[in-house]
Each structure stands twice: as C-alpha cells, then as structure tokens.
C-alpha cells in the first residue's frame, strides 16, 4: 500500500472513468441543474460531500455487517436506505451547525437521494475494490479516495458544461436542436475529448 495507489485511484476516477461522460451516472442533475454555473457549483459540492460519506458508510456496512452475517445479497436495499437516511441526517446536521453552508447546499441535498451517482459509486466500490482478503482499513481508504475522485470529476464536468451551456443559450441554434438535444451532442463531444485521456495510466 503506497501513495501511488491513491494517486491512481483519484486520477482514474476523476478523468479516465469520468462518472458522467464515461459511466453515465448522474445524468439527471447533469442535464437539470447545469443551466447556471452557480447552481452547478452548489450541486457538485453537495454531491462530493454526500458521496464521500456515503461510500465510507456503505463500505463499512458491507464489510463489517452484511458480509460477516452472510447476507450480501440485500446490499441494494440496505444501501439505498442508508443513503436516504444519511442524506436526511446530513441535511439536519448542516442546518444545525452552519447556516451559511446550509444556504448554499440545502436545496440540492434532497435531490441527491435519487441521484444514481451515489448508489452507483457505492455499488462500484463493492464490485471493484472489495475482496474477501483485503484488510478493512486499506479497502476503506481506497473506496473513500475513489469517491473523492469521482465527486471531483462530477464537479469538473458539470461546471465546464454549465459554462458551455450559458454560451449556448445566446447562440443561434436551429429550432429542432434547441435545449436537450444540442446539450447531449455537446456532452458527446466532451466525452470524445475525455476518451483521449485513457492513456494517462
């Protein structure tokens, strides 16, 4: 276990297997809240925050509870319940401790429960990282690093895309392509550019 593992995990999660452009997770917020840069930043901060906590909690739950008691097949049900209650808890906690943080993240938090990126990363951690032999702490650290990289990648793309979209609003697009279709094609071109990063590692 060395620093290189974490660097690889974070770069591969952020740029190479980008959560939006390569894995297609979290498309709804990608198309929904990316009309304004400020909303995009708020949403991606909330996603990053919840994603890191949720992947730590779900990894722990799987390793220490579900696997130990021989019930890994209910992981989907357990994870979605844990994520839903976690989001609720984080919302209450932020509301109590930091009013300014709540103001900037508050309205995005309820949307996150049905954001497939969170559940997708939690499930992905189990299929890609978890093995019967890996020590708990090592697996947990890699899972959290992957979640951090995924959240950063989500923020990078959604912010870049919202900037492009603000320009797109002002440009003269044919009627049939206005709105979602042209946004999808722009995302396709961005994805094409990110395909070129596959050779980094």
């Amino acid at each position: 276990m060395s620093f290189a593992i974490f660097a690889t995990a974070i770069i591969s999660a952020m740029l190479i297997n980008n959560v939006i452009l390569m894995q297609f997770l979290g498309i709804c917020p990608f198309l929904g809240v990316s009309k304004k840069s400020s909303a995009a930043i708020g949403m991606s901060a909330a996603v990053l925050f919840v994603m890191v906590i949720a992947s730590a909690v779900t990894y722990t739950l799987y390793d220490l509870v579900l696997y130990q008691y021989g019930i890994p097949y209910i992981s989907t049900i357990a994870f979605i319940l844990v994520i839903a209650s976690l989001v609720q808890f984080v919302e209450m906690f932020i509301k109590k401790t930091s009013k300014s943080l709540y103001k900037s993240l508050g309205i995005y938090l309820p949307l996150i429960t049905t954001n497939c990126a969170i559940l997708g990363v939690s499930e992905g951690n189990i299929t890609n990282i978890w093995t019967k032999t890996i020590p708990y702490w090592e697996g947990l650290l890699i899972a959290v690093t992957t979640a951090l990289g995924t959240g950063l990648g989500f923020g990078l793309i959604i912010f870049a895309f919202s900037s492009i979209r603000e320009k797109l609003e002002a440009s003269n697009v044919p009627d049939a392509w206005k709105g979602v279709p042209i946004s999808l094609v722009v995302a396709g071109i961005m994805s094409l550019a990110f395909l070129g990063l596959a050779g980094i590692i």
Partner: protein
Amino acid sequence: MSKKENFLKGFLKENPIFVFLLGMCPALAVTATFETSLGMGLLVVFVLTSSNIVVSAVKKWIPHDVRTPAYIVIIATFVTVVGMVTEAYALDLYLALGVFIPLIVVNCLILGRAEAFASKNTVVDSAIDGIGMGLGFTFALVVIGILREFLATGGIMYGVYLPFFVDAPITIFSLDMIINLFTNGFVISDYGLKVFSLPPGAFIALGIILAVFQFKKARKDRKAAIAKMERIAELKRVALEKKKQAALKLAKAGGK
C-alpha cells in the same frame, strides 16, 4: 381513460425517455447494442409492473409521510429479485449491464409511476400502466440500441447476451447481405463508425433522436398555429360581413 389508452400512452404520447427525459442513465449506458437494450427494458418492465401492483395493493396501509422510503424498499426488493434471476439465467447480460441492474432502484421512472399513478389507482389499472410504461421505455431503449449498433457495426446481432430461442448468435440484419449481392467478400463491420459503440456515441445518438422528436413536435405545433390563425381570420371575416349587412340594413331603414 380507457384501459387501451392507459396501455398505449407510454409508447409515444407519454414516452418516458423521448418526452419526459426520465431514466436517462440507462438510456445512455446500456444501449450500445440491440440486445442489452432489450434485456434492460424487459427487466424494467418486470420491476415496474410488480412494484406498481404492490404499491397500489398496500397503498391504504402506508402512512403519507413515509411513503417514499416505503416505495423505495418495495422497488429495491424486486430489483434484487431480477438481479438474481438474471445472474442465474443470462450471465452474459448480467455482466454486460453490471452496476445498472441495482441502479434500477433509483430510476426516476419507477418511483415516479409509483408516486403519480399506482398510489392513486386500482391494482388492475396500475398493472396495465406498469406494463405499458415499461414497454414504452423498452421501445425507446431498443430504438436507441438499434441505431447505435447499426451505425457501429452495420448490422443487428441476436443471441450474444440473451441466450433464449437460439443456440448460437445469429445476425438478424446486416448491410452485408445487400452489398454482397453485387460483390464478394465485403465485410461492413470494417467500415463501421466505432465511436457509436463507445460512450460519446451514446450522447450523440440520443441527441439526434431527441432532435427528430423535437422537429416533429415543432412542425405539428406550427401546423396547429397556422390552422388556428386561419380559423380566427375566417371568424373575423364572418363577423365583418355581419356588421356590413347590419350597417346596410340600418342605412336602408334610415333612407326610408
């Protein structure tokens, strides 16, 4: 709404993907080939129908404040079931769909139907709605899948991921069949647009299909607007004529 309308509305009028943009993640992720799209669509049909039936059956006993978590647990149960069945009977499909089988849980379409339809209607209507909406979703996925696979390889294959009814993978349709009438040994897949089987192709293919839908809708709207304007002009003309006649009558009466 009759039962037939209820069943058919999911295909074009209220298509989840093309009209409401619900469930976009699987629409982009699993549509690289015709078969994976069909497989995913059928899984969604099953989950949506069963969850609709159960939600509408137990709707009286679910308190209003905790209905969303209750629906999610019901949906997650059926998703776990279909995940296990797929792993047992179609392992290749299970591996190809990967994380998108558990992610059916957070598909907005299923929770949306539970909330908007099944929690207010009877069991039979909810079941019909589930099958119709699910098949509409499948239809959309299959359209995207066929477009992408055709552009990427020049043909449509069956039997690689869904090992039902066939022993070995077969080609349903391929441009080779047509081109090889005139020449020999031509392999269309050498000339395929490979990018359409990769992630960028998913975005671009869905963008093209949505643009076609938007174009048709815009044309329909324009026709409707023109018809409305013509009707208004006609009404105006009739009203003006009446006015003229009234004025003429008045003038005649005044002349006397």
